[in-house]
C-alpha cells in the first residue's frame, strides 16, 4: 500500500471497472490502487485505451451503467467510500468536494446560457447563495481564472470565447465550491501550446492556493514533466510504474515507460534516433495470465508471460515502484502481498 507522509485526500484501493462487450464483462482497469495528497498533483499517463480516463470516470461514478460497472474496490474521499453512497449524496459531492474538467470544454458548457449565468447556477446549487451573491461569486471566480475584463464578459455566451478562455471558464466552474480534489482529463490537449502553458500555470497556482489534490490525466510526457509531483504510468488497465516526477524521468524502470520516452521526438535536443514500440496494445477482450506488455517487450522472459508481476520497489525506494520481473525484481514479501 502507499504510505504518503501526510493524510491523503483520496485513497483508491483495488479499483476494477469492467465493460460489457458482446455479452461478456471485460476489465478496463484492473485492481488499481493509489492515493492523492493535499496540494499534490498525481499525473496519470498512458496511451489510448490504457484506462486512464476510465479511472477518472470511475472515481466520479460517471461510468455509463448501460455499458460498464465498477466491479470491485474502494474510492475513499475524506472518509466517505464513494462507491457505497446513494446517488443523491454522490450528486452533492460531485462539483462540491470533487470536480472534473475535460478536454473539450464546449461540450460541457450550455451554449444558450451566459458564461456568468452558468457559474452562478453551479454556486447556487451547491452553496444555496442568493442570486445576487451568486453573481458576485461567479464574477470573482472569473477574475481568479484571469478572464480579461471579466465583468464585461460575464454576459457573453460560450461561442464568443476562445478555446483557452472556455477552459478557464470550466476551471472556474470546477473550483466554484473549492473542492478538495480536481480531476483534469486531458484539459490542455485541444489547446495550442502557448495557451496550454497558461492553463497549466493557472492550474498549478490554484492547486497550491487552495491546497487541493489534483489528478491530471494526459498522454503527453512533456506535460507530465511540467505539472506533476508524482506520476503513475498505466498500460493495459494497470499501473505499471509509479514514482515522484524526478525519479520517473531520471530512472524510467519499466520497459514500457522507457520505450515511451524514447519514442517521443524532442524539441530540446538534436535529432536522435526514435525507437518505436513494435506492435499494438492488446484489446481489453484478450486475457493474458502474465504481463500485458510482454508481447511488445524486448526484455520479455518466459515468466513474464506466465504470471503478472507485482508493483515492486525499485532499488529499495519507498516511492518508486514498477511492475516488471526483469527490471524490478520483487522480494518474496512483495510477490505474496
Amino acid at each position, binding site marked *: 500500500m502507499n504510505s504518503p507522509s501526510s493524510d491523503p485526500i483520496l485513497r483508491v484501493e483495488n479499483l476494477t471497472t469492467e465493460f460489457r462487450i458482446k455479452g461478456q464483462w471485460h476489465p478496463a482497469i484492473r485492481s488499481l490502487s493509489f492515493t492523492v495528497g493535499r496540494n499534490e498533483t498525481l499525473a496519470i499517463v498512458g*496511451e489510448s485505451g490504457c484506462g486512464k480516463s476510465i479511472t477518472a470516470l470511475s472515481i466520479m461514478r460517471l461510468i455509463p451503467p448501460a455499458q460498464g460497472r465498477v466491479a470491485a474496490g474502494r474510492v475513499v474521499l475524506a472518509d466517505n467510500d464513494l462507491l457505497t453512497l446513494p446517488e443523491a449524496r454522490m450528486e452533492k459531492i460531485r462539483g462540491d468536494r470533487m470536480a472534473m474538467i475535460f478536454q473539450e470544454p464546449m461540450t460541457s458548457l450550455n451554449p444558450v446560457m451566459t458564461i456568468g449565468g452558468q457559474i452562478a447556477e453551479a454556486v447556487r446549487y451547491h452553496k444555496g447563495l442568493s442570486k445576487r451573491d451568486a453573481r458576485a461569486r461567479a464574477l470573482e471566480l472569473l477574475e481568479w481564472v484571469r478572464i480579461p475584463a471579466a465583468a464585461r464578459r460575464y454576459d457573453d455566451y460560450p461561442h464568443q470565447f476562445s478555446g483557452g478562455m472556455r477552459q478557464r471558464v470550466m476551471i472556474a466552474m470546477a473550483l466554484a465550491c473549492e473542492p478538495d480534489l480536481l480531476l483534469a482529463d486531458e484539459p490542455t490537449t485541444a489547446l495550442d*501550446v502557448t495557451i496550454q*502553458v497558461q492553463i497549466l500555470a493557472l492550474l498549478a497556482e490554484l492547486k497550491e492556493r487552495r491546497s487541493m489534490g489534483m489528478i491530471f490525466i494526459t498522454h503527453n510526457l512533456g506535460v507530465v514533466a511540467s505539472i506533476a509531483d508524482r506520476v503513475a504510468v498505466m498500460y493495459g488497465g494497470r499501473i505499471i510504474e509509479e514514482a515522484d516526477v524526478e525519479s520517473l524521468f531520471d530512472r524510467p524502470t519499466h520497459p514500457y515507460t522507457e520505450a515511451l520516452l524514447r519514442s517521443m521526438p524532442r524539441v530540446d535536443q538534436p535529432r536522435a534516433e526514435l525507437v518505436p514500440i513494435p506492435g*499494438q496494445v492488446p484489446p481489453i477482450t484478450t486475457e493474458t495470465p502474465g504481463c500485458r506488455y510482454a508481447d511488445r517487450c524486448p526484455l520479455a522472459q518466459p515468466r513474464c508471460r506466465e504470471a503478472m508481476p507485482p508493483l515492486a520497489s525499485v532499488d529499495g525506494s519507498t516511492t518508486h515502484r514498477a511492475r516488471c520481473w526483469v527490471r524490478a525484481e520483487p522480494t518474496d514479501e512483495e510477490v505474496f502481498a
Partner: protein
Amino acid sequence: MSAILEVRNLSKRFEVRHGFMGTKRTTLRAVDDISFTVEQGESFGIVGESGCGKSTAGRSLLRLVEPSAGEVRYRGENIMSFDKGRMQALRRQIQIIFQDPYASLNPRMTIGATLAEPMLLHGLAGRAELREKIEAALDEVGLPPLAMQKFPHEFSGGQRQRIGIARALALHPQLIVADEPVSALDVSIQAQVLLLMEKLQERRGLSFVFISHDLGVVRHFCDNVAVMYLGRIVEKGPVDSVFEAPLHPYTQALRAASPVPDPRKKITVAKLEGDIASPLSPPSGCHFHPRCPKAMPVCRERYPEWRAVSMQRGVACHLY
C-alpha cells in the same frame, strides 16, 4: 542541390460574410505573402498554431485551394498557369496526406480498391499487374497482403495512416505535402509512422512539405522550418538553429511553451499573455505585437520587413 519547389509571395484571401444576416464582409488573409524553397530530397517544415494558415498554405501548393496571388514553381515551372489536364498530371508528382486518414478513406471501399483507383486513373497499372502492385504498395508501408480485402474501419489509427501513405505513394510522387500526419496518433505509433516516412524518403528520394504544430516532431523530421503566425512567415531557417536559438519573440515563446520530458526544464509562461488574435482582424503592424514582450512603438505601425540574418536564416521582426 536543385529546388523541387519554389513558393514566391503566395497569398490566399477569403471573403468572409459575418455579422447580422451576413451583412458584413471582411477579407481573411489566411496566407499572406509567404515565400520559401524546398530542395530536392529535403523535408521542409511549416510550424504554427491554430489559424496561422499552415494548412491553407499546404493546400495552396497543390491548388486544392486556389491561391489569390503569388507563384508556386515545381521544378522551375509556374503551376499557377497550368490548365486542368496539366494539373492532373502534376498531381501524380505531388501528393498530400492528411491528419485523419479515416476521413479521407472511403468507408465502403476495400483497401485494395482504394489503392487501385489512383493507379487505374493515371494508367499506371493494367488490370493484370494490379494485384501485384497493390501488394507491393502495402508491403512498402508494412501491411500484409491480406489488408487488401479489408475495410478502413477494421484498422487502427496508425494502420490507417499507413494506408494513407501507401495511397499517396502509389503514383510514385516526388513531393509529398504532409498535413499533421502524426498528430492524431499515440506517441509510440507516431514514432512508427515517422520512421516509415523517413525510410521511404531515403529509399525514394522524396521531398516533403511537413506541416505540424509539434516542434519536437518538426525538429526530428525536417531539415529547415518556417514558423507562421496569422498568415505570415515570421522566421525561417535550419531546424537546429531555429529551435536552439530562436530569433523572433514568437518563435521564442513557442519554443519555451513546448513541453519537454524533463521536470528540471519546466515549460515557462515567459511573458506571453493573451490569446491568439482572430485572423479576421489581425492586429496592425506586426501581428504579434499585442502579445510580444519586446514590442516597440514601431511594431504597432509597420509590418517588419523580411531580413536575412545569415545565408540560411531570416526573420521578420523590427528587433533585427
